[in-house]
């Protein structure tokens, strides 16, 4: 089988973002999605530190320390974008105004629970940022992650063992192996990478899947 690279994964997520969507791309892997948004669609990127209509990284030398994204990287503002304070920004995030947020994850459970902020390790410094707000606030939560950990364990699980970010919040999971919807009917596989059989995918996944490629 051909596992999706990080870039292919980002491109796959980007393809599901429609014209006019208001979208927050979480820190880490999801920020890559911005590079693959179709150029012919107007899509509104939100960053929780107070901007809507976020544009690409500036040309070298044009960075402005007052214009950064939630990952604290320099960005630009599109024509038509605007700035606002944290209160208004989280009104957008928590009030159901974002169509989609894309988050990374340590684990996703079969009922859509998300764990992505804390390993729970005794020595770990916990840090949550806006992850829990995005998990409960966006209309649809997309997760993008590798299907397995580096040691080969499934990140899709019956029940999360890492501390939760949100309960039953994930709508869809994009991995290097498959695209899986999460809903009342459990986890439904919509796409698999070339050369992967459903049986093999199920074997690599620690939760029951249904096969229903449209």
């Amino acid at each position, binding site marked *: 089988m051909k596992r999706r690279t990080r870039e292919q994964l980002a491109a796959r997520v980007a393809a599901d973002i429609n014209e*006019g969507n208001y979208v927050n791309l979480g820190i880490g892997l999801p920020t890559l999605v911005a590079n693959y948004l179709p150029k012919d669609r107007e899509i509104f990127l939100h960053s929780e530190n107070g901007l809507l209509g976020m544009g690409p990284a500036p040309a070298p030398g044009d960075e402005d320390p007052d214009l950064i994204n939630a990952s604290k990287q320099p960005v630009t503002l599109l024509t*038509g974008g*605007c700035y606002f304070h944290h209160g208004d920004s989280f009104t957008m995030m928590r009030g159901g*105004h974002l169509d989609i947020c894309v988050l990374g994850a340590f684990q996703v459970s079969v009922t859509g629970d998300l764990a992505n902020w804390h390993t729970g390790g005794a020595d770990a410094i916990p840090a949550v940022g806006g992850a829990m707000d995005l998990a409960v606030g966006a209309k649809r939560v997309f997760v993008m992650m590798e299907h397995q950990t580096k040691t080969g364990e499934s990140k899709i699980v019956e029940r999360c063992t890492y501390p939760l970010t949100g309960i039953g919040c994930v709508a869809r999971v994009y991995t290097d192996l498959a695209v899986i919807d999460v809903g009342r009917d459990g986890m439904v596989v919509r796409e698999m990478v070339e050369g992967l059989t459903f049986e093999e995918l199920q074997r690599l996944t620690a939760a029951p899947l249904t096969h229903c490629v449209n």
Partner: protein
Amino acid sequence: MIDKVVHSLAMAVDDVRDGATVMIGGFGGAGMPSELIDALIAQGARDLTIVNNNAGNGEAGLAALLKARRVKKIICSFPRQTDSQVFDGLYRAGELELELVPQGNLAARIQAAGSGLGAVYTPTGFGTLLAEGKETRRIDGRDYVLEFPIHADFALIKAHRADRWGNLVYRKTARNFGPIMAAAARCTVAQVDEVVPLGELDPEAIVTPGIFVQRVVPIGGQRSPRNGAATQGHAR
């Protein structure tokens, strides 16, 4: 390309259904979306719940909507005015339900809806008629009343300028309830004096970001003489 500009008042309110909750901006006449209200009257939806600071005055606008018997209930803070005769008559006849809310609680409940809060403890109204039957709680030695969000199906508001993404700026005290209602409704329709090209509104000074606005209707026309001649909507 996203263009939220709708060129017909009728189309802008076409899908308001019977029984809908409709927020209407404005404080007195300032910020009152008169043209959208007229379109709503023409559209014909009934059994509406209206959220507005007042309850109409004179015979036009919200008063006309009441007079046409389209409204089942009104949620407001100050229905009584010298010329609120339409409301007064219907209320006294028991033909219109009134939920009277202190103005700050009205704002807080609208904001709670927009920002996804489940409820807020507010200091206003504790120990008064308007908190009767409501849950209360003493927090740090002060008494509060539990108030729940007011969500709406539609918000009809008036702004000054908009662009095709729905970004809005207002004019003076006509801003009032517009920005908070825009965030609390499933579908916000803004009538504006003028639609300007994308990028013409200062990104530091946009008051309502387009994420809160679904439709923009340019009205043009009436502008205070102090601000130059009436302008035409760019996109008309």
